Protein backbone atom coordinates (compact mmCIF):
# COMPACT_ATOMS: atom_id res chain seq x y z
CA UNK A 1 0.00 0.00 0.00
CA UNK A 2 1.49 3.34 -1.01
CA UNK A 3 -0.19 6.05 0.96
CA UNK A 4 1.03 9.52 1.72
CA UNK A 5 -1.59 10.15 4.38
CA UNK A 6 -0.50 10.13 8.02
CA UNK A 7 -3.57 8.13 8.97
CA UNK A 8 -5.43 6.29 6.23
CA UNK A 9 -8.84 4.93 7.19
CA UNK A 10 -10.33 2.78 4.47
CA UNK A 11 -13.74 1.09 4.43
CA UNK A 12 -13.76 0.71 8.21
CA UNK A 13 -16.80 -0.84 9.84
CA UNK A 14 -17.36 -1.72 13.45
CA UNK A 15 -20.13 -4.01 14.66
CA UNK A 16 -20.77 -4.58 18.36
CA UNK A 17 -22.43 -7.76 19.57
CA UNK A 18 -23.61 -10.61 17.39
CA UNK A 19 -26.77 -12.12 15.94
CA UNK A 20 -29.63 -10.70 13.92
CA UNK A 21 -31.09 -8.55 16.68
CA UNK A 22 -28.13 -8.11 19.03
CA UNK A 23 -25.65 -6.66 16.56
CA UNK A 24 -25.25 -2.90 16.41
CA UNK A 25 -23.36 -1.32 13.53
CA UNK A 26 -21.45 1.56 15.10
CA UNK A 27 -19.49 2.45 11.96
CA UNK A 28 -20.13 1.57 8.33
CA UNK A 29 -17.64 1.93 5.48
CA UNK A 30 -15.79 4.95 6.81
CA UNK A 31 -13.13 6.36 4.49
CA UNK A 32 -10.89 9.19 5.63
CA UNK A 33 -7.34 10.26 4.90
CA UNK A 34 -5.72 12.47 7.53
CA UNK A 35 -2.60 14.42 6.58
CA UNK A 36 0.42 15.04 8.75
CA UNK A 37 -0.06 18.04 11.01
CA UNK A 38 -3.75 18.28 10.23
CA UNK A 39 -6.37 19.09 12.87
CA UNK A 40 -9.44 16.94 12.26
CA UNK A 41 -12.66 17.38 14.23
CA UNK A 42 -15.08 14.47 14.28
CA UNK A 43 -18.48 16.06 14.80
CA UNK A 44 -21.88 14.48 15.26
CA UNK A 45 -24.67 13.60 17.67
CA UNK A 46 -24.24 10.77 20.18
CA UNK A 47 -24.35 7.36 18.57
CA UNK A 48 -22.72 8.51 15.33
CA UNK A 49 -19.62 6.43 16.05
CA UNK A 50 -17.19 9.31 16.43
CA UNK A 51 -15.78 8.04 19.72
CA UNK A 52 -15.66 4.50 18.34
CA UNK A 53 -13.63 5.75 15.38
CA UNK A 54 -11.23 7.50 17.76
CA UNK A 55 -10.92 4.35 19.83
CA UNK A 56 -10.07 2.36 16.69
CA UNK A 57 -7.38 4.88 15.73
CA UNK A 58 -6.01 4.69 19.28
CA UNK A 59 -5.88 0.92 18.95
CA UNK A 60 -8.08 0.25 22.00
CA UNK A 61 -10.47 -1.69 19.78
CA UNK A 62 -10.10 -3.37 16.40
CA UNK A 63 -12.27 -2.75 13.36
CA UNK A 64 -14.70 -5.45 12.27
CA UNK A 65 -13.62 -4.85 8.69
CA UNK A 66 -11.47 -2.41 6.76
CA UNK A 67 -8.06 -1.04 7.69
CA UNK A 68 -6.53 1.87 9.62
CA UNK A 69 -3.00 2.58 8.56
CA UNK A 70 -0.49 4.96 10.14
CA UNK A 71 2.56 5.88 8.04
CA UNK A 72 1.87 2.86 5.84
CA UNK A 73 1.61 0.40 8.73
CA UNK A 74 -1.60 -1.08 10.09
CA UNK A 75 -2.47 -0.02 13.65
CA UNK A 76 -2.33 -3.11 15.87
CA UNK A 77 -2.81 -1.73 19.36
CA UNK A 78 -2.23 1.26 21.63
CA UNK A 79 1.13 2.86 21.06
CA UNK A 80 3.00 5.87 22.44
CA UNK A 81 2.98 7.45 18.96
CA UNK A 82 -0.77 8.05 19.47
CA UNK A 83 -1.68 9.42 22.88
CA UNK A 84 -5.21 10.08 24.05
CA UNK A 85 -6.90 12.83 26.07
CA UNK A 86 -10.13 11.53 27.63
CA UNK A 87 -13.31 13.36 28.52
CA UNK A 88 -13.08 12.19 32.14
CA UNK A 89 -9.35 13.10 32.20
CA UNK A 90 -8.33 9.58 33.32
CA UNK A 91 -5.52 11.07 35.38
CA UNK A 92 -3.88 8.72 37.84
CA UNK A 93 -5.45 9.90 41.09
CA UNK A 94 -2.63 8.71 43.37
CA UNK A 95 0.05 10.62 41.45
CA UNK A 96 0.84 14.33 41.56
CA UNK A 97 0.25 16.25 38.35
CA UNK A 98 4.03 16.17 37.83
CA UNK A 99 4.13 12.36 38.12
CA UNK A 100 1.14 12.05 35.82
CA UNK A 101 2.93 14.01 33.12
CA UNK A 102 6.11 12.01 33.72
CA UNK A 103 4.31 8.69 33.24
CA UNK A 104 4.72 8.44 29.47
CA UNK A 105 8.37 9.51 29.76
CA UNK A 106 8.97 6.85 32.39
CA UNK A 107 7.45 4.31 30.00
CA UNK A 108 9.98 5.50 27.41
CA UNK A 109 12.80 5.01 29.93
CA UNK A 110 13.72 8.69 30.00
CA UNK A 111 16.09 9.35 32.90
CA UNK A 112 14.72 10.66 36.19
CA UNK A 113 16.13 14.18 36.05
CA UNK A 114 15.36 14.66 32.36
CA UNK A 115 11.75 13.54 32.66
CA UNK A 116 11.20 15.79 35.66
CA UNK A 117 12.46 18.71 33.59
CA UNK A 118 10.35 17.83 30.52
CA UNK A 119 7.23 17.39 32.67
CA UNK A 120 7.79 20.75 34.35
CA UNK A 121 8.15 22.39 30.94
CA UNK A 122 4.91 20.87 29.69
CA UNK A 123 3.05 21.83 32.85
CA UNK A 124 4.32 25.37 32.31
CA UNK A 125 3.06 25.30 28.73
CA UNK A 126 -0.45 24.47 29.94
CA UNK A 127 -0.12 27.13 32.65
CA UNK A 128 0.10 24.78 35.61
CA UNK A 129 3.41 25.98 37.05
CA UNK A 130 3.18 25.92 40.81
CA UNK A 131 0.70 23.01 40.78
CA UNK A 132 3.23 20.25 40.08
CA UNK A 133 2.78 18.60 43.47
CA UNK A 134 -1.01 18.75 43.61
CA UNK A 135 -3.03 15.57 43.36
CA UNK A 136 -5.70 15.52 40.64
CA UNK A 137 -8.57 15.72 43.13
CA UNK A 138 -7.12 18.92 44.55
CA UNK A 139 -7.51 20.92 41.33
CA UNK A 140 -10.44 22.04 39.16
CA UNK A 141 -11.77 20.22 36.10
CA UNK A 142 -10.12 22.67 33.73
CA UNK A 143 -6.77 22.18 35.43
CA UNK A 144 -7.19 18.41 35.34
CA UNK A 145 -7.75 18.55 31.62
CA UNK A 146 -4.73 20.83 31.13
CA UNK A 147 -2.64 18.29 33.03
CA UNK A 148 -4.07 15.47 30.92
CA UNK A 149 -3.14 17.37 27.76
CA UNK A 150 0.39 17.89 29.10
CA UNK A 151 0.57 14.19 29.95
CA UNK A 152 -0.47 13.25 26.43
CA UNK A 153 2.01 15.65 24.80
CA UNK A 154 5.04 14.97 27.01
CA UNK A 155 6.14 11.72 25.31
CA UNK A 156 6.15 13.62 21.98
CA UNK A 157 3.58 11.52 20.09
CA UNK A 158 2.98 11.91 16.34
CA UNK A 159 -0.75 11.99 16.82
CA UNK A 160 -2.89 13.46 19.56
CA UNK A 161 -6.33 11.90 19.97
CA UNK A 162 -8.85 13.90 21.97
CA UNK A 163 -12.16 12.29 22.97
CA UNK A 164 -14.58 15.11 23.85
CA UNK A 165 -11.89 16.59 26.10
CA UNK A 166 -13.91 19.68 26.98
CA UNK A 167 -17.27 17.94 27.36
CA UNK A 168 -17.26 17.95 31.16
CA UNK A 169 -16.18 21.57 31.59
CA UNK A 170 -18.19 24.75 32.05
CA UNK A 171 -18.73 27.01 29.05
CA UNK A 172 -16.13 29.66 29.97
CA UNK A 173 -13.37 27.16 30.71
CA UNK A 174 -14.22 25.40 27.46
CA UNK A 175 -13.75 28.54 25.38
CA UNK A 176 -10.41 29.30 27.04
CA UNK A 177 -9.15 25.77 26.59
CA UNK A 178 -10.21 25.73 22.93
CA UNK A 179 -7.85 28.62 22.31
CA UNK A 180 -5.08 26.93 24.26
CA UNK A 181 -5.51 23.66 22.41
CA UNK A 182 -5.32 25.51 19.12
CA UNK A 183 -2.15 27.29 20.20
CA UNK A 184 -0.50 24.10 21.51
CA UNK A 185 -1.37 22.02 18.47
CA UNK A 186 -0.25 24.59 15.91
CA UNK A 187 2.99 25.17 17.87
CA UNK A 188 3.76 21.49 18.02
CA UNK A 189 2.63 20.65 14.48
CA UNK A 190 1.09 17.40 15.63
CA UNK A 191 -1.71 15.60 13.85
CA UNK A 192 -4.84 15.95 15.99
CA UNK A 193 -8.10 14.04 15.89
CA UNK A 194 -10.63 15.79 18.09
CA UNK A 195 -14.03 14.27 18.86
CA UNK A 196 -16.78 16.70 19.83
CA UNK A 197 -20.49 17.31 19.62
CA UNK A 198 -19.98 21.07 19.77
CA UNK A 199 -20.44 22.58 16.32
CA UNK A 200 -18.73 25.86 17.13
CA UNK A 201 -15.91 24.01 18.86
CA UNK A 202 -15.31 21.84 15.78
CA UNK A 203 -15.44 24.77 13.34
CA UNK A 204 -13.23 26.91 15.57
CA UNK A 205 -10.49 24.30 15.98
CA UNK A 206 -10.30 22.14 12.90
CA UNK A 207 -8.63 22.25 9.49
CA UNK A 208 -11.39 19.93 8.40
CA UNK A 209 -14.63 19.18 10.20
CA UNK A 210 -15.75 15.63 9.53
CA UNK A 211 -19.49 15.53 10.10
CA UNK A 212 -20.86 12.12 11.01
CA UNK A 213 -24.40 10.81 11.29
CA UNK A 214 -25.77 7.87 13.26
CA UNK A 215 -27.32 4.45 12.65
CA UNK A 216 -25.10 3.30 11.17
CA UNK A 217 -22.24 5.72 11.91
CA UNK A 218 -20.85 7.17 8.71
CA UNK A 219 -19.29 10.32 7.31
CA UNK A 220 -21.87 12.55 5.69
CA UNK A 221 -19.95 15.73 4.99
CA UNK A 222 -16.48 17.24 5.31
CA UNK A 223 -16.06 20.99 5.79
CA UNK A 224 -12.65 22.55 5.09
CA UNK A 225 -11.81 25.58 7.20
CA UNK A 226 -11.08 29.04 5.83
CA UNK A 227 -9.56 30.25 9.09
CA UNK A 228 -5.82 30.63 9.66
CA UNK A 229 -3.71 29.33 12.55
CA UNK A 230 -3.46 29.85 15.40
CA UNK A 231 -7.11 30.44 16.04
CA UNK A 232 -7.90 33.51 18.11
CA UNK A 233 -10.97 34.67 19.98
CA UNK A 234 -11.64 37.28 17.25
CA UNK A 235 -12.25 34.52 14.70
CA UNK A 236 -15.48 33.60 16.45
CA UNK A 237 -16.88 36.78 14.84
CA UNK A 238 -15.48 35.93 11.40
CA UNK A 239 -18.34 35.82 8.83
CA UNK A 240 -17.19 32.43 7.52
CA UNK A 241 -17.15 31.02 11.08
CA UNK A 242 -20.62 32.25 11.98
CA UNK A 243 -22.22 31.21 8.70
CA UNK A 244 -20.60 27.74 8.80
CA UNK A 245 -21.72 27.12 12.37
CA UNK A 246 -25.23 28.22 11.40
CA UNK A 247 -25.34 26.05 8.27
CA UNK A 248 -24.07 22.99 10.13
CA UNK A 249 -26.60 23.56 12.86
CA UNK A 250 -29.43 23.79 10.32
CA UNK A 251 -28.34 20.58 8.63
CA UNK A 252 -27.68 18.65 11.86
CA UNK A 253 -30.75 19.88 13.74
CA UNK A 254 -33.14 17.15 12.54
CA UNK A 255 -30.70 14.46 13.66
CA UNK A 256 -30.19 16.04 17.05
CA UNK A 257 -33.94 16.28 17.48
CA UNK A 258 -34.25 12.62 16.52
CA UNK A 259 -31.59 11.67 19.11
CA UNK A 260 -33.33 13.73 21.72
CA UNK A 261 -36.59 11.86 21.29
CA UNK A 262 -35.04 8.44 21.65
Amino acid at each position, binding site marked *: MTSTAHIDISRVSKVFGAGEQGAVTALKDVDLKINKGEFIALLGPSGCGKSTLLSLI*AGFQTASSGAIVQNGRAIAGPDAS*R*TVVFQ*DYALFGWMSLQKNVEFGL*KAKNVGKRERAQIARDFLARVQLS*GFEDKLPHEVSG*GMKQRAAIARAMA*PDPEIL*LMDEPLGALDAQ*TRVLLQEEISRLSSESGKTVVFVTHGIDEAVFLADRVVVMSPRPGRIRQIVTSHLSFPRTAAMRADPWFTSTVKELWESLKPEWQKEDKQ
Partner: protein
Amino acid sequence: MTAQAVSSPATLSAPAPSRMRSASRRMLALNLIGLGLFFGLWQGLASAGIINAFLLPSPVDVVAALWEMSNDGSLWVNLAASLKRVCVGYLMACVVGLTLGFVCGSSQVMAEIVRPIVEALRPVPPLAWVPIAILWFGLGDLSAYFLVFLGCVFPLFFGAYTAVRSIDRNQINAAKCLGASRWLLFSGVLIPASLPIMMPNLRLALGIGWMCVVTAELIAAQTGLGYLIQQSRMLFQIQNVVAGMVAIGFVGYVMSAAVERIERRINAWAPSERD
Protein backbone atom coordinates in the same frame (compact mmCIF):
# COMPACT_ATOMS: atom_id res chain seq x y z
CA MET B 1 -9.52 31.30 35.04
CA THR B 2 -6.45 31.90 37.15
CA ALA B 3 -4.83 29.04 38.94
CA GLN B 4 -4.92 30.74 42.32
CA ALA B 5 -8.65 31.32 42.15
CA VAL B 6 -9.31 27.61 41.73
CA SER B 7 -7.01 26.37 44.42
CA SER B 8 -8.67 28.14 47.31
CA PRO B 9 -11.88 26.05 47.60
CA ALA B 10 -9.78 22.94 48.06
CA THR B 11 -8.05 24.39 51.10
CA LEU B 12 -11.29 25.76 52.51
CA SER B 13 -13.06 22.41 52.41
CA ALA B 14 -10.73 20.85 54.99
CA PRO B 15 -11.96 21.44 58.55
CA ALA B 16 -9.75 23.51 60.82
CA PRO B 17 -7.27 21.23 62.62
CA SER B 18 -8.17 22.43 66.11
CA ARG B 19 -11.85 21.70 65.57
CA MET B 20 -11.04 18.25 64.23
CA ARG B 21 -8.88 17.51 67.27
CA SER B 22 -11.55 18.52 69.76
CA ALA B 23 -14.13 16.40 67.92
CA SER B 24 -11.92 13.34 68.04
CA ARG B 25 -11.15 14.01 71.72
CA ARG B 26 -14.88 14.02 72.45
CA MET B 27 -15.26 10.74 70.60
CA LEU B 28 -12.42 9.20 72.56
CA ALA B 29 -14.04 10.34 75.80
CA LEU B 30 -17.33 8.69 74.79
CA ASN B 31 -15.48 5.48 73.89
CA LEU B 32 -13.85 5.45 77.31
CA ILE B 33 -17.19 6.06 79.04
CA GLY B 34 -18.63 3.03 77.18
CA LEU B 35 -15.76 0.78 78.21
CA GLY B 36 -15.85 2.10 81.77
CA LEU B 37 -19.59 1.35 82.07
CA PHE B 38 -19.09 -2.17 80.72
CA PHE B 39 -16.26 -3.10 83.06
CA GLY B 40 -17.80 -1.22 85.97
CA LEU B 41 -21.06 -3.14 85.65
CA TRP B 42 -19.19 -6.43 85.29
CA GLN B 43 -17.02 -5.73 88.34
CA GLY B 44 -20.02 -4.53 90.33
CA LEU B 45 -22.06 -7.63 89.60
CA ALA B 46 -19.09 -9.84 90.45
CA SER B 47 -18.32 -8.01 93.70
CA ALA B 48 -21.98 -8.16 94.75
CA GLY B 49 -21.86 -11.92 94.24
CA ILE B 50 -24.57 -11.88 91.56
CA ILE B 51 -22.15 -13.48 89.05
CA ASN B 52 -20.76 -16.81 90.09
CA ALA B 53 -16.96 -16.36 90.06
CA PHE B 54 -16.57 -19.92 88.86
CA LEU B 55 -18.59 -19.17 85.70
CA LEU B 56 -17.22 -15.68 85.07
CA PRO B 57 -14.34 -14.15 87.00
CA SER B 58 -14.36 -10.46 87.80
CA PRO B 59 -12.31 -8.00 85.74
CA VAL B 60 -9.88 -7.62 88.63
CA ASP B 61 -9.29 -11.37 88.68
CA VAL B 62 -8.79 -11.38 84.92
CA VAL B 63 -6.23 -8.58 85.11
CA ALA B 64 -4.45 -10.46 87.89
CA ALA B 65 -4.41 -13.60 85.74
CA LEU B 66 -3.03 -11.64 82.80
CA TRP B 67 -0.37 -10.12 85.02
CA GLU B 68 0.63 -13.55 86.30
CA MET B 69 0.77 -15.12 82.83
CA SER B 70 2.74 -12.17 81.62
CA ASN B 71 5.25 -12.59 84.44
CA ASP B 72 5.71 -16.34 84.00
CA GLY B 73 6.06 -15.75 80.23
CA SER B 74 3.28 -18.12 79.13
CA LEU B 75 1.21 -15.23 77.71
CA TRP B 76 4.07 -14.05 75.51
CA VAL B 77 5.13 -17.50 74.33
CA ASN B 78 1.59 -18.35 73.29
CA LEU B 79 0.92 -14.92 71.81
CA ALA B 80 4.09 -15.19 69.73
CA ALA B 81 3.06 -18.65 68.50
CA SER B 82 -0.38 -17.39 67.45
CA LEU B 83 1.01 -14.26 65.78
CA LYS B 84 3.55 -16.26 63.83
CA ARG B 85 0.81 -18.58 62.58
CA VAL B 86 -1.54 -15.85 61.55
CA CYS B 87 1.26 -13.99 59.77
CA VAL B 88 2.52 -16.99 57.82
CA GLY B 89 -0.97 -18.18 56.88
CA TYR B 90 -2.06 -14.69 55.94
CA LEU B 91 1.00 -14.06 53.77
CA MET B 92 0.51 -17.38 51.97
CA ALA B 93 -3.13 -16.47 51.39
CA CYS B 94 -2.06 -13.05 50.08
CA VAL B 95 0.34 -14.59 47.58
CA VAL B 96 -2.24 -17.09 46.29
CA GLY B 97 -5.45 -15.08 46.72
CA LEU B 98 -4.24 -11.73 45.44
CA THR B 99 -2.38 -13.26 42.49
CA LEU B 100 -5.39 -15.31 41.44
CA GLY B 101 -7.65 -12.34 42.00
CA PHE B 102 -5.51 -10.08 39.83
CA VAL B 103 -5.25 -12.71 37.09
CA CYS B 104 -9.00 -13.40 37.10
CA GLY B 105 -9.77 -9.70 37.27
CA SER B 106 -7.76 -9.05 34.12
CA SER B 107 -8.74 -12.17 32.17
CA GLN B 108 -12.34 -13.16 31.61
CA VAL B 109 -11.25 -16.65 30.54
CA MET B 110 -9.30 -17.29 33.74
CA ALA B 111 -12.15 -15.87 35.79
CA GLU B 112 -14.62 -18.34 34.29
CA ILE B 113 -12.24 -21.24 34.95
CA VAL B 114 -11.33 -20.32 38.52
CA ARG B 115 -14.58 -18.93 39.88
CA PRO B 116 -16.61 -22.16 40.05
CA ILE B 117 -13.80 -23.76 42.06
CA VAL B 118 -13.67 -20.82 44.43
CA GLU B 119 -17.45 -20.70 44.75
CA ALA B 120 -17.55 -24.41 45.59
CA LEU B 121 -14.85 -24.20 48.27
CA ARG B 122 -15.79 -20.87 49.79
CA PRO B 123 -18.96 -21.92 51.70
CA VAL B 124 -17.03 -24.61 53.64
CA PRO B 125 -16.10 -22.99 56.97
CA PRO B 126 -12.45 -23.38 58.01
CA LEU B 127 -13.62 -25.29 61.10
CA ALA B 128 -14.90 -28.07 58.84
CA TRP B 129 -11.38 -28.43 57.47
CA VAL B 130 -9.91 -29.22 60.90
CA PRO B 131 -10.11 -33.05 60.60
CA ILE B 132 -8.47 -32.93 57.16
CA ALA B 133 -5.86 -30.47 58.44
CA ILE B 134 -4.94 -32.78 61.31
CA LEU B 135 -4.87 -35.77 58.98
CA TRP B 136 -2.58 -34.02 56.50
CA PHE B 137 -0.42 -31.90 58.75
CA GLY B 138 -0.78 -33.29 62.27
CA LEU B 139 -1.02 -31.06 65.35
CA GLY B 140 1.01 -27.87 65.19
CA ASP B 141 2.09 -25.01 63.01
CA LEU B 142 1.36 -26.53 59.61
CA SER B 143 -2.27 -27.25 60.43
CA ALA B 144 -2.70 -23.74 61.77
CA TYR B 145 -1.08 -22.18 58.67
CA PHE B 146 -3.41 -24.21 56.51
CA LEU B 147 -6.56 -23.18 58.40
CA VAL B 148 -5.58 -19.51 58.47
CA PHE B 149 -4.79 -19.73 54.77
CA LEU B 150 -8.24 -21.18 54.05
CA GLY B 151 -9.95 -18.50 56.09
CA CYS B 152 -8.09 -15.63 54.42
CA VAL B 153 -7.68 -16.72 50.84
CA PHE B 154 -11.26 -16.21 49.67
CA PRO B 155 -11.83 -12.66 50.89
CA LEU B 156 -8.38 -11.77 49.52
CA PHE B 157 -9.23 -13.33 46.16
CA PHE B 158 -12.54 -11.48 45.90
CA GLY B 159 -10.95 -8.25 47.10
CA ALA B 160 -8.37 -8.30 44.33
CA TYR B 161 -10.82 -9.60 41.74
CA THR B 162 -13.50 -6.95 42.28
CA ALA B 163 -10.87 -4.23 42.67
CA VAL B 164 -9.26 -4.97 39.33
CA ARG B 165 -12.61 -5.23 37.62
CA SER B 166 -13.78 -1.91 38.98
CA ILE B 167 -10.76 0.04 37.77
CA ASP B 168 -11.70 2.75 35.31
CA ARG B 169 -11.10 1.34 31.81
CA ASN B 170 -9.87 4.72 30.64
CA GLN B 171 -7.04 4.74 33.17
CA ILE B 172 -5.79 1.46 31.78
CA ASN B 173 -6.19 2.75 28.24
CA ALA B 174 -4.38 5.95 29.19
CA ALA B 175 -1.45 3.96 30.52
CA LYS B 176 -1.37 1.74 27.44
CA CYS B 177 -1.41 4.61 24.95
CA LEU B 178 1.38 6.30 26.92
CA GLY B 179 3.46 3.24 26.11
CA ALA B 180 3.39 1.50 29.50
CA SER B 181 4.99 -1.94 29.53
CA ARG B 182 3.09 -4.80 31.18
CA TRP B 183 5.13 -4.33 34.34
CA LEU B 184 4.57 -0.57 34.53
CA LEU B 185 0.86 -1.09 33.87
CA PHE B 186 0.71 -3.60 36.73
CA SER B 187 2.92 -1.90 39.31
CA GLY B 188 2.24 1.70 38.35
CA VAL B 189 -1.49 1.61 37.63
CA LEU B 190 -3.31 -1.64 38.45
CA ILE B 191 -1.94 -2.03 41.98
CA PRO B 192 -2.28 1.58 43.17
CA ALA B 193 -5.67 2.00 41.48
CA SER B 194 -7.06 -1.14 43.13
CA LEU B 195 -5.60 -0.62 46.61
CA PRO B 196 -8.38 1.63 47.97
CA ILE B 197 -11.01 -0.92 46.95
CA MET B 198 -8.90 -3.84 48.13
CA MET B 199 -7.95 -2.52 51.58
CA PRO B 200 -11.24 -3.28 53.38
CA ASN B 201 -10.91 -6.89 52.23
CA LEU B 202 -7.28 -7.06 53.37
CA ARG B 203 -8.47 -5.94 56.80
CA LEU B 204 -11.43 -8.32 56.83
CA ALA B 205 -9.19 -11.24 55.87
CA LEU B 206 -6.74 -10.45 58.67
CA GLY B 207 -9.61 -10.52 61.17
CA ILE B 208 -10.81 -13.85 59.84
CA GLY B 209 -7.25 -15.17 59.93
CA TRP B 210 -6.97 -14.23 63.60
CA MET B 211 -10.22 -16.06 64.40
CA CYS B 212 -9.05 -19.08 62.42
CA VAL B 213 -5.76 -19.32 64.27
CA VAL B 214 -7.55 -19.40 67.62
CA THR B 215 -9.97 -22.01 66.28
CA ALA B 216 -7.07 -24.10 64.99
CA GLU B 217 -5.27 -23.87 68.31
CA LEU B 218 -8.31 -24.98 70.28
CA ILE B 219 -8.10 -28.31 68.51
CA ALA B 220 -5.02 -28.80 66.44
CA ALA B 221 -2.09 -27.25 68.27
CA GLN B 222 -0.12 -27.39 71.48
CA THR B 223 0.84 -23.74 71.75
CA GLY B 224 -0.88 -20.44 71.08
CA LEU B 225 -3.61 -18.39 72.73
CA GLY B 226 -6.29 -20.85 71.62
CA TYR B 227 -4.39 -23.68 73.20
CA LEU B 228 -3.89 -21.58 76.35
CA ILE B 229 -7.65 -21.17 76.66
CA GLN B 230 -8.35 -24.82 76.07
CA GLN B 231 -5.65 -25.91 78.51
CA SER B 232 -6.89 -23.52 81.19
CA ARG B 233 -10.45 -24.78 80.77
CA MET B 234 -9.31 -28.34 81.43
CA LEU B 235 -7.48 -27.17 84.55
CA PHE B 236 -10.59 -25.21 85.66
CA GLN B 237 -8.57 -21.96 85.60
CA ILE B 238 -11.51 -19.96 84.40
CA GLN B 239 -9.76 -16.61 85.03
CA ASN B 240 -7.01 -17.73 82.62
CA VAL B 241 -9.62 -18.66 80.01
CA VAL B 242 -11.09 -15.18 80.15
CA ALA B 243 -7.63 -13.61 80.30
CA GLY B 244 -6.74 -15.48 77.09
CA MET B 245 -9.96 -14.26 75.48
CA VAL B 246 -9.17 -10.68 76.48
CA ALA B 247 -5.69 -11.02 74.97
CA ILE B 248 -7.19 -12.36 71.72
CA GLY B 249 -9.69 -9.53 71.55
CA PHE B 250 -7.08 -6.92 72.28
CA VAL B 251 -4.57 -8.18 69.71
CA GLY B 252 -7.31 -8.52 67.08
CA TYR B 253 -8.37 -4.95 67.76
CA VAL B 254 -4.82 -3.62 67.52
CA MET B 255 -4.20 -5.43 64.22
CA SER B 256 -7.42 -4.15 62.73
CA ALA B 257 -6.72 -0.60 63.91
CA ALA B 258 -3.22 -0.74 62.44
CA VAL B 259 -4.47 -1.86 59.05
CA GLU B 260 -7.19 0.77 59.16
CA ARG B 261 -4.57 3.45 59.70
CA ILE B 262 -2.67 2.27 56.64
CA GLU B 263 -5.98 2.12 54.78
CA ARG B 264 -6.79 5.72 55.57
CA ARG B 265 -3.41 6.88 54.29
CA ILE B 266 -3.80 4.95 51.07
CA ASN B 267 -7.35 6.21 50.59
CA ALA B 268 -6.32 9.82 51.08
CA TRP B 269 -6.47 10.47 47.33
CA ALA B 270 -9.42 8.24 46.55
CA PRO B 271 -12.70 9.61 47.96
CA SER B 272 -12.77 12.90 46.12
CA GLU B 273 -11.56 11.20 42.97
CA ARG B 274 -14.79 9.21 42.88
CA ASP B 275 -17.19 12.13 42.94
